[in-house]
């Protein structure tokens, strides 16, 4: 009984001691920043201000919204500079297209099935790098605006306090954590690496397909003109050189055929350029526009993913948004 009594006393003693410790530690935590004895001589220490978690959550969401809208506003200008070389290259590409060298290069590439690659290299030589720069710029701008907006909101909250106040450890940690988190979550650059290069390839391939159809049609039309022209030209050439013997006749015939072959090609290419160049350039411009719009939509979606990543959620909300 004595042993039992000692055990019971020790047990309740331990519980009471722990209760005293809990109350003491809690009181000490409450007293932090609220000294019991007022200090008169030194100026009052700045008040430590902890922003409630729900309010901080609202601020983080608002900063995400602000960062999204700021970058969405910049997007058109950034894309315009990234696509400027592509637009500027359209007349040069048309020059190449309406030249004999261009004609034969395109025919060769079309025959090898590599027209898309050639088009990508000539029309969009630096576009992928340009878009990566735009994405990196947006990521950087998003983080900057997010940080500035959050800092400004926290500053406003501190300024509203009646005494000079400094930010509490918990709030500062949450703020730093939110900034660090947003710095690495769902970067636009990663989304663009996955989306931009394939989009450029698809556009180049589409352009190449349309162009290949045109070239094939043009080659067929020229074939008929050349067949009669070359036959007649070779015969005339051979007849003119016939006094020089049979070998001279053959050489003159081949020379005349070659002159007529290339002469016909050059004439048709120039005629085609005269009538169709403006339409061709407009078509190229429309295709680049289409590609730019697709990339713009991808970038806006990636920016929005970053904005959404600033928000915490409950599973109920997630289930609601999924429906």
């Amino acid at each position, binding site marked *: 009984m004595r042993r*039992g*009594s000692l055990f*019971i006393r020790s*047990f*309740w003693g*331990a*519980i009471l001691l*722990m*209760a005293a*410790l*809990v109350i003491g*530690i*809690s009181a000490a935590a409450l007293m932090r920043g609220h000294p019991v004895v007022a200090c008169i001589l030194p100026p009052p220490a700045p008040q430590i201000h902890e922003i409630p978690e729900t309010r901080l*959550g609202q601020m983080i969401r608002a900063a995400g919204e602000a960062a999204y809208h700021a970058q969405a506003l910049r997007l058109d200008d950034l894309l315009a500079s990234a696509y400027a070389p592509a637009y500027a290259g359209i007349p040069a590409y048309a020059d190449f297209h309406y030249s004999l060298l261009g004609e034969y290069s395109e025919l060769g590439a079309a025959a090898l099935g590599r027209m898309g690659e050639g088009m990508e290299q000539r029309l969009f030589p630096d576009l992928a790098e340009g878009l990566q720069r735009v994405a990196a710029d947006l990521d950087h701008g998003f983080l900057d605006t997010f940080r500035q907006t959050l800092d400004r909101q926290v500053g406003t909250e501190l300024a509203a306090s009646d005494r000079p106040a400094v930010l509490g450890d918990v709030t500062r940690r949450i703020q730093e954590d939110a900034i660090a*988190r947003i710095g690495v*979550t*769902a970067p636009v650059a990663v989304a663009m690496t996955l989306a931009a290069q394939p989009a450029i390839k698809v556009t180049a391939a589409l352009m190449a397909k349309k162009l290949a159809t045109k070239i094939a049609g043009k080659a067929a039309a020229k074939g008929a003109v050349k067949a009669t022209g070359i036959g007649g030209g070779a015969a005339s050439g051979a007849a003119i050189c016939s006094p020089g013997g049979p070998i001279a006749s053959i050489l003159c015939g081949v020379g005349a055929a070659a002159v007529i072959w290339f002469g016909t090609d050059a004439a048709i290419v120039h005629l085609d350029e005269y009538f169709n160049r403006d339409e061709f350039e407009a078509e190229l411009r429309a295709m680049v526009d289409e590609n730019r719009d697709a990339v713009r939509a991808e970038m806006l979606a990636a920016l929005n993913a970053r904005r*959404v*990543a*600033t*928000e*915490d*959620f*409950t*599973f*109920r909300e*997630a*289930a609601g948004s*999924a429906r």
Partner: protein
Amino acid sequence: MRMAAAIFRAFVVMVVPLALWRLAAPLTGWAALALLPLGAAIWWGIYHPLRSRRQAELAVAILPGARLGRWLTGRLGAGINATLGVLVALPVLGWLALGGKGPVLVAVAVTGLLAGILSITATRLLSATLTRPYARLAGQRIGSGIAALAGLAPLVWITWAVIPVPHEITSASLSDAMSAALAARPAGDGWPGEVMGLFAALDTAKLWLAAQYREAAWVGLVFSIDAALVSFVAARSFVAVLEFTRMIARARE
């Protein structure tokens, strides 16, 4: 009035060690010492009713003066059961106290109090029919079981609809999410931190799974299993602590 006093005492014995553990665990691993009195109370609270019922069975089964009677006392079985109970209850309660959000803690506390009230009431009702060792054990099991089932629904609801989940868990891989949870575990270094790390990893794995498949219906099952473990452990532990404090009160009288 006596019931209220008994439940209040049990509540204090349950909450004070857990509160001290919650406050001191981030500072030192020695905070785990605060859980020892709670562990002892749960151990005794499980051991004593089990041993009493086993002894009642053995009193009928074993002939007076039999040699084996000296060995078959029911202590070993009851001791093993109580030890297993403590090994499950203490880490779960420790993790709950450390990482549980406010609404979850309130729901668990209400479940515990309900378990205490129901177990005392059930024991009283059964005492009219059963002998004391049987009535006590059956009353405790019925009381804690009903309270745990009643506490399950609010716990599932709170986890599903009230507690916010960080959004990055939807884009992180499982290993990244678990590494982040282990790095941020609140119990610091040392073996208590390691044990809590295991719970942090399991909890994160649960959240990750639920976040990845949040449109699937079976996600509810993940929450239910987790909430059932918490609810049953909290109810059973509170009833054990209540039994212990009532035993002490009876010994004093």
